[in-house]
C-alpha cells in the first residue's frame, strides 16, 4: 500500500485524485467529501448533491480500487468500479482510487453509454437531478448482477445460481438507494430493462 499523508495535526492534505482518467493534484481540507471535491474543486458538477447524508443516491459515482488498500487484498468482485455515495466518502479516502463520474461514462468520441441513451429514449426523468446518480448506480448494478451478487429480491442465495437475471423486482430492489422525487421510476425501470435486454 502506498504510504499516505500526514501528521496528526494537519487539517488538510495534498492529495491525488484520479477522475475519469485524469489525475488531479489538490490540497483539500480533510472535511471535503469526494462529492464536494468533484463539484467545487474540479468543476465536475454532473454529480449532484441531494440530501448530503447518503439517503438519496444523487451523488453516486463509481470507484475502483477503494478496497485494494485492504490488507490481504479484496475479494473477487464485479468488473468496473463500485458504486458509492460520494457524499459520505471523504476525498482523502479516495486517493489512489480510480473514480468515474457521469462525465466519464460516455465514450471519448461522445457516444453515450447505453444507459444514457436508454434514459433519453425512455424519457426516464422529469427534472433530471437524480439522473446522473441513477445512471452511475445502474451501471454498477449491471456488473454486480453479472458477477452473481444476490439481492434481497433474489429467489435463491445459492452460490451455484450464477449471473442474476434482472427482472423488474430485482431492478427495483437493487436501485432502491436512488430516490427520484419526481417519481419517474416507471421509465427509469423501463430504461434499465432495455439495457439488460441488449446486453444479454
Amino acid at each position, binding site marked *: 500500500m502506498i504510504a*499516505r*499523508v*500526514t*501528521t*496528526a495535526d*494537519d*487539517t488538510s*492534505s495534498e492529495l491525488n485524485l484520479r477522475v475519469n482518467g485524469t489525475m488531479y493534484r489538490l490540497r483539500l*481540507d*480533510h*472535511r471535503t*467529501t469526494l462529492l464536494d471535491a468533484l463539484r467545487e474543486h474540479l468543476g465536475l458538477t454532473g454529480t449532484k448533491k441531494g440530501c*448530503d*447524508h*447518503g439517503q438519496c*443516491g444523487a451523488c*453516486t459515482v463509481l470507484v475502483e480500487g*477503494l*478496497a485494494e*488498500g*485492504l*490488507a*490481504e*487484498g*479484496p*475479494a473477487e*468482485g464485479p468488473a468496473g468500479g*463500485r*458504486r*458509492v*455515495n460520494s457524499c*459520505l*466518502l*471523504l476525498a*482523502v*479516502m479516495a486517493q489512489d482510487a480510480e473514480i468515474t463520474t457521469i462525465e466519464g461514462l460516455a465514450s471519448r468520441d461522445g457516444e453515450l453509454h447505453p444507459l444514457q441513451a436508454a434514459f433519453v429514449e425512455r424519457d426516464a426523468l422529469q427534472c433530471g437531478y437524480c439522473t446522473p446518480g441513477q445512471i452511475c*448506480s445502474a451501471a454498477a*448494478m449491471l456488473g*454486480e448482477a453479472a*458477477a*452473481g*451478487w*444476490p*439481492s*434481497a*429480491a*433474489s*429467489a*435463491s*442465495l*445459492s*452460490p451455484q445460481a450464477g449471473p442474476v437475471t434482472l427482472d423488474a*423486482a430485482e431492478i*427495483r*430492489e*437493487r*436501485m*432502491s*438507494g*436512488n430516490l427520484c422525487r419526481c417519481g419517474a421510476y416507471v421509465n427509469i425501470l423501463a430504461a434499465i430493462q432495455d439495457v439488460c435486454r441488449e446486453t444479454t
Partner: protein
Amino acid sequence: MRLFGYLVPPDPAAAIAAVTGRPGAAFLAGGTNLVDLMKLGVATPDLLVDVTGLLPGRIEPVPGGGLRIGAGVRNSDLAADPRVRAGFPVLAQAVLAGASGQLRNMATVGGNLLQRTRCLYFQDVTKPCNKRVPGSGCPARAGDHRNLAILGGSPHCVATHPSDMAVALAALDAVVHVEGPAGPRALPLGELYRLPGDRPDRETTLERGDLITAVDLPAPGFAARSAYRKVRDRASYAFGVASVAAALDVDGGVIRDARLALGAVAPLPWRARTAERVLAGRPATAEWFGRAADAELADAAPLPDNAFKVTLVRNIVVRMLCELANGELAHGESAGAAS
C-alpha cells in the same frame, strides 16, 4: 464540521497507539455512519485514524469448519461470499436487507457492529439526549418513539441498535476479535454490547483504542437452515421496525435446537434465549413457536406508540419458524423478498 487531522498508520499497532493516546481521535473505516454523524455535529473527532487499509479484508476458513471474517470486509463482499450464502444464509440475508447497494460497497463489518443508533433525538444536537450528552434527559419516552425499543431499554434511553448484520451474528454465536492497548482478545458478540441502564453513552465493552479486527462464525451446523426477515415502513432501503434472525434444527417433528435473535426492538442485537429454552425439545408447531415468542416478550416494556411491535415480533417469529420447520426456507433460499 469540526476541523480534524487524518492519519493512515502503517499497521494496526500504530493505529491503536494513535487512538489510545488522543481522547479526540476515532478510527475510520467505511465512514458511512461516522462521516454522517460528523456532518450532523454528533461526532466531533479531532483526528481520524483510517484503518481501512489495515484491517483484514478477506473471509477465511478456520479449523473446524467455521469462517473468519476480516473486520475490513465490505458488506457487499460478505453478502456475496459463496460460503456465507451456503452455510450462513441468515447472515447474507441480513446484510442484503440493510442499507443500499452503494452503502454496502462502503460499509465494513467492524464498522457495522459499532454504528450508532438512528434515534432522532440522538442525531439532533438541538435536543437533549442521554446517550449523546449524559444527564441531559430523554425526550423520546414522551415524544417520537414509534421505532424505539420494547426490550432492554431504561428510563434513561430507549434507543435501538440499527444493524441488521449484528442480529444475524447474534443468532450465529459469532465471536469478535479485538486488538487494543491491553493486547488481543476474543469475546462473544453478546459481550460486546451493554444495556443502557443509567449510562446509555457507554454502548460497548470496548475501551479507548480497542479495534475490532475480525469476526468468527462457528461451524455452520444447522445454521444452513436459517433465515432473516425484516419488516420496515417501505419495501427497501429503510431501517427495520422489527426483524428476526432464526435457525432451526428439527428432527422428526421435534425441535432439537433453535437460535433466535431480534433486531430493531432493543438497544443491542437481542438474542432471544428465553424463547430458545422454551423451544428446545418441544414439537415444531405454531403453538409452541407462539409460546416461545410470548415467553421472550413477557418482559417487553413498550411505550404507547410502539406497543404494536410486541405483536409484530410475535407474528414474525411464528411465521418464520413455521417456514423453517416446513422447509419452505430451504438451504440457501432467500426469505428477504417477503419483507
